[in-house]
C-alpha cells in the first residue's frame, strides 16, 4: 500500500515567527535552520513555549511564518503531509473507518479504493474489529491508533506528529511508540515528531533537535547513535542511552533555569 521511495526533503532557513498581540510583538521562533533528509525521523524536543508546535503547524500549512524560508520537496507525492495531533482529533460524529478514510474522501479517491486502503490501515494499527465503532466508544490509546491510521492511509510524503502519545498512560505509550517505529521502518516516510520528552525523542528519532524557549531557537542538534531496527524496551535499559539522556537533560536544564530567572526578574 505504500510507495517504495522515501519521503519528502525539508529545508528550513532563517525561519521566524512573530505574533502581534495586545501587549506587543511576541517572537515565537527565531532564526531556525534545519534540513531533513528524505525518510528521516527527526524529533524536536524542548520545554513548553519553545515554539516546537508552532514550527510543526507552519510545516503543515496550518500556520504561516513571518520571515525566512521553508521548502518542502514532495515531488511525485499526491499528499504532502498528514498531521497527528496530541488529542486524536477523530471526528466524534464519524465511525472509525469513516474517520480513517476522511483524508482520501476529501481528495476524491474512488470509494472502493478508499475501502481497500482503509482496510489495510486499520489492520496496520490493529483496529479492524472496531471499524464501526464511534470514537467515544474507544479508549484513548485506540483513538490515537485511529489518528495514526488516518494519517498513514493518505500516504503522505511527510508525517507531522505533535506529542501524539503525551496524553496516554505509560504502557500504552510504549506499545504505540513500538508500533510507530515498526511502521516507520517499513514505510520510511519523513517524520517530524514533536515531544517534550527527551527519552521519547532518543527512542524514536534519527536526530534530536533541542529547542529553547523565549524566543524559540535551536540550541543543538544531536545525532542519535542507535540504529534500526530498534527495540525500544532494550534500548531504554541501555547504559549509553541513559548517559545520552543525562547529557541532553543538562543542556536543557541550563536553558530552563536561565529562562525562569529572566521571567522572575
Amino acid at each position, binding site marked *: 500500500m505504500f510507495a517504495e521511495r522515501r519521503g519528502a526533503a525539508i529545508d528550513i532557513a532563517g525561519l521566524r515567527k512573530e505574533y502581534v498581540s495586545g501587549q506587543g510583538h511576541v517572537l515565537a521562533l527565531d532564526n531556525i535552520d534545519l534540513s531533513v533528509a528524505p525518510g528521516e525521523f527527526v524529533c524536536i524536543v524542548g520545554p513548553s513555549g519553545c515554539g516546537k508546535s508552532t514550527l510543526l503547524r507552519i510545516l503543515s500549512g496550518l500556520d504561516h511564518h513571518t520571515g525566512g524560508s521553508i521548502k518542502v520537496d514532495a515531488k511525485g507525492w499526491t499528499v504532502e503531509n498528514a*498531521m497527528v495531533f496530541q488529542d486524536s482529533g477523530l*471526528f466524534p*460524529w*464519524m465511525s472509525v473507518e469513516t474517520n480513517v478514510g*476522511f*483524508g482520501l474522501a*476529501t481528495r476524491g479517491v474512488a470509494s472502493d479504493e478508499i475501502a481497500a486502503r482503509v482496510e489495510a490501515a486499520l489492520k496496520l494499527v490493529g483496529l479492524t474489529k472496531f471499524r464501526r465503532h464511534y*470514537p467515544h466508544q474507544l479508549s484513548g490509546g485506540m483513538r490515537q491508533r485511529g489518528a495514526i491510521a488516518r494519517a498513514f492511509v493518505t500516504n503522505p510524503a511527510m508525517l507531522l506528529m505533535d506529542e501524539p502519545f503525551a496524553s496516554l498512560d505509560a504502557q500504552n505509550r510504549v506499545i504505540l511508540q513500538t508500533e510507530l517505529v515498526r511502521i516507520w521502518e517499513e514505510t520510511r516516510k519523513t517524520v517530524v515528531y514533536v515531544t517534550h520528552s527527551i527519552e521519547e525523542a532518543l527512542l524514536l528519532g534519527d536526530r534530536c533537535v533541542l529547542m529553547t524557549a523565549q524566543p524559540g531557537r535551536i540550541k543543538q542538534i544531536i545525532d542519535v547513535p542507535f540504529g534500526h531496527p530498534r527495540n525500544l524496551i532494550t534500548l531504554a535499559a541501555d547504559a549509553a542511552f541513559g548517559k545520552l539522556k543525562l547529557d541532553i537533560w543538562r543542556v536543557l536544564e541550563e536553558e530552563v533555569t536561565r529562562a525562569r530567572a529572566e521571567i522572575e526578574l
Partner: protein
Amino acid sequence: MSGLSPKTRDRMLYLISPIGLLILWQLLLMAGIGDRRFIPAPTDIAVRFWTLIRNGELAMHTGVTLVRVFAGFVIGAIPGVAVGLLMAMFKPVRIFFDPLIAALFPIPKIALMPLLLLAFGFGDASKIALVAIAVFFPVIVNTYTGASNIEKIYWDVAKNYGASQWVMFTRIVFFGALPMIFAGLRIALAVSFIVLVAAEFVATKSGLGYLIWNSWELLQVDIMFVGIVTIGVLGLITSALFQEIERKVIPWKAE
C-alpha cells in the same frame, strides 16, 4: 414501595403529581367548592373530550393546527440551520446577519400578525409565515452557537486533511453543530405552538386556538379545557418524537 425497582419507583413518582392534581381538583368541585359552570370537573372535560372526538371536530381542528405548525417549522428551520452554519464559517455572513438578529429576535413575533395578514391574507399562509419567522430565530442562534463552539482541532484536522469548503460545511460544521441544532429545534417547536395558538385566537375559523377562543366567547369552559389539554398532549408527543429522532441521528452523543 420498597419492593419496586428504582426505575418503576421513578416512573410512579413521575405520575403522582399530575394524577394527584386531577383528583384534588375533582374532589374540591364535588365538595361544592368552586362553581362547576366556570370550572368544569375533570370528568366533565373527559365527557366533552369524548363527544368532540366522536363528532370529528377535535380531529379537524388538531389537523389544521398540526399542518400549520409542521409547514411553518420546516420553512423556518431549514434556512435557520443553513444561515447559522454559514455565519460560523464566514465572517462577512456573520457581520451581515448579526445586527438583523439582534434587532429582530426580541420582537414578540405575534406582533407581526397584522402585517402578515396584510401580506398573506386570512388563509393558512399567514399563520404558516408567522410560525416560520418564530422558528427561524431560535434555530439560527442555536445553530450558530453550536457551529462556532466546535473545537479548533476539528477545523485543523479538516483543513490538514484536504477538506474543501463544501466538505467543511456538510461533514464537519453541520455535524459538529448538530447537538445544538437539536436543542434549538426543540425550543422552536414550543415557540411555534405558542405563536400559532395565539394567532388562531383572532385570525382564523379553524385550529385549536380558534376552538379555545370560540368556546370562551360562547362560555363553553369545558371545550376550552379540551383545547388546552390537546395542545399539551401534542407538545408531549412531538417532543418525545424529537428525542427519538435525536437518538437516531446523533449516535455519538454519549448515553
